[in-house]
């Protein structure tokens, strides 16, 4: 024993000496040690009985194993120590060290983009293949500097800061692969973000020279400022053949729906200015226009708007009296008044985003950042990421010729919606506009969604801000269905050894017309269930399932034997429910198939003194839980309980042998957002939740334990999902002055 200890210590010390990266390893070793200790203390003493010779041998063997393990571990988890530094360390080089490529004047130029390209015609899906993670692989070409024959670079900026950010974000992401043969999408490192800084022909030649160009198939180009004077094309002019284009400022005629991706024009201002999120609400100005280079016709119309509506409209322009310099981009003026830009955007509810020479405007990004609702007047503009983002919830898109009417149009939007839009605008910026990383990864995700449409992100995932995601529910059983009565329900009786009571329950339940099958979950491993002949004779099939362990969660296991949707969970001592009551419970469940429908109701309360939740089983006017000692529910919740219960709730329940019903109530309420339904009047249940407990003091501890459960579960769920209601369901004519024999469910509520 002591030898093991010693070697254990030695190993631990040795492991500790390895330092940080091996810490994890030490945990495993320690873990296995402890396990072996524990095991040996229980089983036959392994080492002390051995002869010295063997002992030495054994220790030697053990050390070899241990050393091997450490070596392997170090090899695996600490690659820098073994592999050569050159291969593993991040290269630190200058952009100017990138290899130089000289383009020949006659080197080939790709064809112009084909407007009819779509994913199924121009995109090679075979290179993406089937993939268990449903994630495309993206390769980035190494950086090269391209010059023409005279040595002039093809671009005036070379690699821009933004494109570098974009590429490093992609390489940091899950999409990245450094193996070009496994790549589904290829991104050239040739920066084409701004067409103004490019030489179009030479850039095209550079593209064509890429080793895997293959007419641009599966290549993705990012461009934000397309076109050039005088007529500013709305898509990049560089001939690019079949390459996909993630472009800012697409018009509906250049955008190839389902192939290109419309991206925002990144505003570098957001890196400079930190605009804290402003609470949505009414603002000082109603409409603000802060663009400086508006066409005079637009400006005239805006002036007219200002005249009509006075203070509510603020019309800003460049400051004429300021010295031209870097700051001019950060100032706006109205007559002699000077405002800080973009801070002023936060002072207005709506901000006008008019088209300029290009359709895509960087101001859109500023406006969203300020949480100002953009009013977009740019006919035929494809809004950024419009394939997935629902712009109607964050902006107002108005045809250009309605510019004079915008005040009336915007006034008709309800206040609460404006606030909602302000919040949504800011969320769009946070999630999709705020950095080149956000823009790049969103683009890739959109393409990913097209290639694996069955794994695509949903509308809610794209559009719901975190606040809504947090509080909203999307029930898995959302379709309003009232299932037919005919298949009936399966009763699942959990039992341990109370045979007599069990048989009574079985006999009682078997009288319920809609019962389809009875399933007895035999939770006692030490005893076999009674012989077949001893069971009560009933008209429906009866199955006994023997469990491996005496666990409470066995009651919620989705047994294959349950063939109906409806499950009645019932304890082996609930003999007081009449057949009418059970049948009525089933009818109620049919009307609320996504809820728990049960008999005894319970309540959770907030204990102000203790500052925590309290469990209440008194006669209350409210219900937030029903006990699963007798409750109908959908079989789907069995799956959820068994496989999708958050945190360690399931283990907690099994360990404490309590609160499985509270856990079920939490689970269902959390996923459906709805309260359970308590049916029929209160009955004298023989303390159904505390079967084995007698006496007041024990009852007290029971209540304490249940309260603890609620607090524990609420902390695991991170919220209190339970909903409190004041109603219960009774038959339509219950207690009405009406002949009992004409009522469908006469025998209800009898004690």
């Amino acid at each position, binding site marked *: 024993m002591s030898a093991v200890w010693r070697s254990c210590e030695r190993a631990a010390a040795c492991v500790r000496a390895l330092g940080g990266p091996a810490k994890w390893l030490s945990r495993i070793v320690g873990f296995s040690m402890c396990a072996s200790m524990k095991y040996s203390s229980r089983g036959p003493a392994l080492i002390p009985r051995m002869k010295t010779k063997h002992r030495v041998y054994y220790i030697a063997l053990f050390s070899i194993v241990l050393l091997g393990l450490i070596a392997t571990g170090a090899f695996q988890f600490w690659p820098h120590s073994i592999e050569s530094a050159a291969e593993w360390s991040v290269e630190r080089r200058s952009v100017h060290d990138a290899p130089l490529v000289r383009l020949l004047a006659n080197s080939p130029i790709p064809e112009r983009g084909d407007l009819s390209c779509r994913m199924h015609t121009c995109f090679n899906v075979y290179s993406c293949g089937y993939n268990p993670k449903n994630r495309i692989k993206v390769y980035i070409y190494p950086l090269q500097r391209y010059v023409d024959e005279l040595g002039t670079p093809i671009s005036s900026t070379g690699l*821009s800061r933004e494109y*570098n950010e974009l590429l490093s974000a992609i390489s940091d992401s899950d999409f990245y692969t450094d193996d070009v043969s496994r790549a589904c999408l290829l991104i050239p490192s040739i920066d084409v973000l701004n067409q103004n800084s490019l030489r179009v022909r030479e850039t095209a030649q550079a593209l064509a020279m890429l080793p895997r160009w293959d007419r641009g198939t599966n290549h993705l180009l990012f461009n934000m400022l397309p076109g050039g004077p005088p007529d500013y094309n709305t898509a990049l002019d560089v001939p690019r053949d079949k390459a996909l284009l993630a472009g800012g400022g697409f018009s509906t005629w250049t955008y190839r729906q389902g192939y290109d991706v419309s991206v925002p024009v990144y505003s570098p201002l957001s890196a400079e200015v930190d605009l804290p999120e402003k609470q949505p609400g009414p603002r000082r100005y109603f409409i603000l226009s802060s663009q400086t280079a508006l066409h005079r016709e637009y400006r005239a119309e805006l002036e007219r708007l200002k005249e009509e509506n006075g203070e509510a409209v603020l019309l800003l322009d460049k400051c004429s009296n300021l010295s031209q310099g870097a700051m001019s981009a950060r100032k706006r003026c109205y007559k002699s008044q000077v405002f800080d830009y973009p801070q002023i955007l936060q002072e207005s509810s709506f901000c006008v985003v008019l088209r300029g020479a290009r359709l895509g405007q960087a101001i859109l990004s500023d406006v969203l950042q300020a949480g100002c609702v953009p009013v977009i007047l740019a006919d035929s503009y494809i809004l950024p990421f419009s394939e997935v983002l629902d712009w109607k919830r964050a902006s107002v898109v108005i045809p250009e010729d309605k510019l004079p009417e915008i005040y009336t149009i915007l006034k008709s939007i309800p206040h609460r919606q404006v606030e909602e839009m302000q919040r949504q605008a800011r969320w769009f910026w946070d999630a999709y506009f705020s950095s080149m990383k956000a823009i790049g990864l969103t683009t890739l995700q959109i393409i990913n969604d097209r290639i694996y449409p069955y794994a695509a992100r949903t509308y809610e995932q794209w559009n719901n801000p975190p606040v809504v995601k947090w509080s909203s529910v999307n029930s898995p059983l959302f379709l309003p269905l009232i299932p037919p009565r005919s298949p009936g329900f399966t009763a699942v009786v959990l039992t341990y050894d109370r045979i007599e009571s069990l048989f009574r329950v079985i006999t009682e339940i078997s009288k319920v017309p809609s019962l389809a099958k009875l399933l007895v979950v035999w939770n006692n491993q030490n005893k076999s269930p009674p012989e077949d002949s001893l069971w009560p004779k009933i008209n429906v099939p009866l199955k006994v399932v023997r469990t491996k362990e005496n666990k409470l969660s066995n009651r919620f296991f989705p047994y294959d034997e349950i063939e109906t949707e409806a499950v009645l969970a019932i304890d082996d001592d609930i003999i007081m429910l009449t057949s009418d009551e059970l049948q009525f419970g089933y009818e109620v469940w049919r009307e609320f198939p996504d809820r728990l429908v049960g008999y005894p109701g319970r309540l959770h309360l907030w204990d102000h003194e203790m500052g925590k939740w309290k469990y209440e089983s008194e006669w209350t006017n409210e219900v937030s839980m029903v006990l699963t000692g007798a409750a109908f529910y959908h079989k789907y919740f069995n799956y959820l309980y068994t496989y999708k219960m958050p945190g360690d709730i*399931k283990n907690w329940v099994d360990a404490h042998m309590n609160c499985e019903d509270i856990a079920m109530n939490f689970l269902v309420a959390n996923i459906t957002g709805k309260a359970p339904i308590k049916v029929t009047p209160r009955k004298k249940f023989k303390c159904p939740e505390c079967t084995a407990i007698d006496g007041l003091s024990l009852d007290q501890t029971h209540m304490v334990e249940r309260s603890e459960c609620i607090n524990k579960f609420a902390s695991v769920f991170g919220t209190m999902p339970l909903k409190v209601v004041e109603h*219960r369901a009774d*038959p339509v004519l219950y207690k009405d002055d009406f002949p009992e024999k004409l009522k469908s469910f006469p025998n209800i509520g009898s004690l």
Partner: protein
Amino acid sequence: MGEQQWLRRSILQLMPHGNFTLLYRIWTRKVMKTSDTVTDFQTFKSGDERNGERSHRGSAGSGAMRMHGPEGEEERRESPGLPQSPIRLPQPPSVEGRARAGRRETSMQARKKYVFLSACACCWLLLVYWGGIQVRLLRLLGRLRADDIRLWPEWVDQDLLLGYANLEELQADAWAGESPQQRRQGWSGIYKDGRCRMETCFDFSRCRGRDGFRVYVYPPEKGDRISESYRKILASITESRYHTSDPHEACLFVLGIDTLDRDQLSAQYVPNVDERIRNYPLWNDGRNHLIFNLYSGTWPNYTEDLGFRVGQAMLAKASLNVEHFRPGFDISIPLFSKDHPQKGGERGWLERNTVPPRRKYLLMFKGKRYLTGIGSDTRNALHHIHNGKDIVSLTTCRHGKDWEKHKDGRCDHDNLEYERYDYQELLHNSTFCLVPRGRRLGSFRFLESLQAACIPVLLSNGWELPFSDVIQWNQAVIEGDERLLLQVPTTVRALSDERILALRQRTQMLWDAYLSSVDKIVLTTLEIIKDRVFSYVSRNKLMWNALPGGLLVLPEYSTHLAHFPFYYLSQGISPGQEFTAVIHAVSPLVSQSQPIMRLLQVLSKSKFCSQIIILWNSEKPPPAKSKWPPMPVPLTVMDGRKKTTSRFLPHVAIETEAVLNLDEDTALLTSEVNFAFTVWRSFPERIVGYPPRSHFWDPVKQVWGYTSKWTNEYSIVLTGAAFYHRYYHHLFSQYLPPSLRALVDHTSNCEDILMNFLVSSVTHLPPIKVAQRKQHKEPPSPQQGVKNGAWSNPEHFTQRQECVNAFAAWFGYMPLVNSQLRLDPVLFKDQVSILRKKYKDMERS
């Protein structure tokens, strides 16, 4: 364990050499064994942390589960804990092995055993070593640690890089060219015909004002043959609320010529369309015209050509190809058969959400195989995935007149197999249904499988899906790729049960909301165009894709989600805490002891009541303000213009979401009102009221019956006293046709039945009845005031029965749903002290 399997599978793929494979086999056996031992092992330690972690991870993997864990669950899911499992798992066997060895130990066997043990250890070591390399490789490829691989370099001089554009350049995006107005005008000259968009080919000025969306149908000329389907389309438009008979106030024009079938070989083909439409005085090169089409082109190419010049007219066309589709202008509609019902339509076949959701067959197809020509590539390949077990993919060559001429070797065998299965049986029993392209891109199969709740797997490259502008199809169908047919089985097999459940329910939702009748298809088309014309007062995508569907959401009412009764849960909000009482007053105010005065007293005591509106429908003018008792809440008297429907008009004065509609003589208690209101807050999309009624089918007369007798079921609650969402006022007055409202006004009856029809058709659920104190004396009270004794009048009753039938005819089906339950306060009539009860009054009689 799924993770381990995946690991094993990926290792298998990685193993290039035989000896690796051998090692791998040993290793996997070991891992498999260890995974068993792990579970045993855990029983020693109750509440084992590892166990906890596993279930934890399992839960994080669920998309449907709302996770509120404070720590970044999502992130953990993204980076699977791969490095942990392979190393951790092999630990226990050594322990196990040693323990077992210890047990077997005898002095003689010791040496043999040590040799065995050391061999084991060496093997194990080697395994870990080699396995380790594999794991490391795997990690390399799976990119688990960011710095493991070569990234885009971090340039030493990256701070010196230039921005892609300077701020000046971005902000001063000056535009000196022609004026915006000129440019817009110029566009319509350039972007026309094949490049039409709303802004260039549609005359918005024809659709002025909010009610400006009017549709005119050209009268069909004499002698025109109009197909059954087109007749239905025209009927739907003529009966819709957008129809106008005056071409001058129309915003949209629909041809009277049947353009559905433009296949020249078809019997339905109408010749010289070109000539005829050019004679239309308002044709104007097709501006603001909408052309419906189901079939275009003909053998052999089935092009998108309609055989006449469409010009600037919009197309509502089935089987649209993305290349010809003018985005934001044309509308893709589903291909429907001539038997498609005009109204109502059959509900989807899904009756219950069975779990596990997989049906007998995983994937099925039964249809024609084209041996040559367009579309044959896909259909010819379909038999490859047939396995006769869970995937049934049957094709036949037997179609057309001369199939035997072209038949190939497979035909006879295929035809035999084809006969063995019944299409309807397959539809009912398959989880997924293949919807491959035929000659054209769309097929009837699409609607059939949607209705059958058989999740469509589309193999139709380039098909612009129906109503793709607004419907998110990826939540209801699997969009496959013709090129990847052989991947389809793997793909659908890999879908989780949760996803199948969600997809299947969504097929039903879409079927029911947009596709089940010609009416719905046509209306959806019109609504999409209307949303484009009034883009700033239109539905967002959520409204289109969430229950109850876009047709039942009127953007004129509001575009704000919280203003509708449908989105509370999905937006994480709850209905307001207050209600507005609307009292329908018919009798003149003479005494202070009139029922209406008592009612006002009752309402004023409710803490939830925020305002009271009296709809004055009496012959006498409303009394002076001083005649009304002083109220703690605002009281408004409005002129109801003596119309029965006025009680459901969308009065702007109603500011709360909940409306309590009351007859002036309703006898209620404050506690009853309060209780019903709390119930309504749990069911904001339904009517919550007191007196129930029911409908039934009379098999003898073949009509619907109506009864006010006490029954064990009900499907209507009278709106003489009922809570509902104010949005239903808007639906009532705008969604319902004027004819039904006129019927109600004319008879001064049935408005409550109509309201119940409307709400049930939206929710597909019954109304909710709540407890009321003394119902047994309620019916004889004169509801209609002036027409005293209307209730005892048998004519009144027959009228109501006629109403039920008239309404059912307009809806095209019977929307009312029966319920057997009533909601009572939790302690209602329980044997506890009355002092404990919150709603005491309700039990005193």
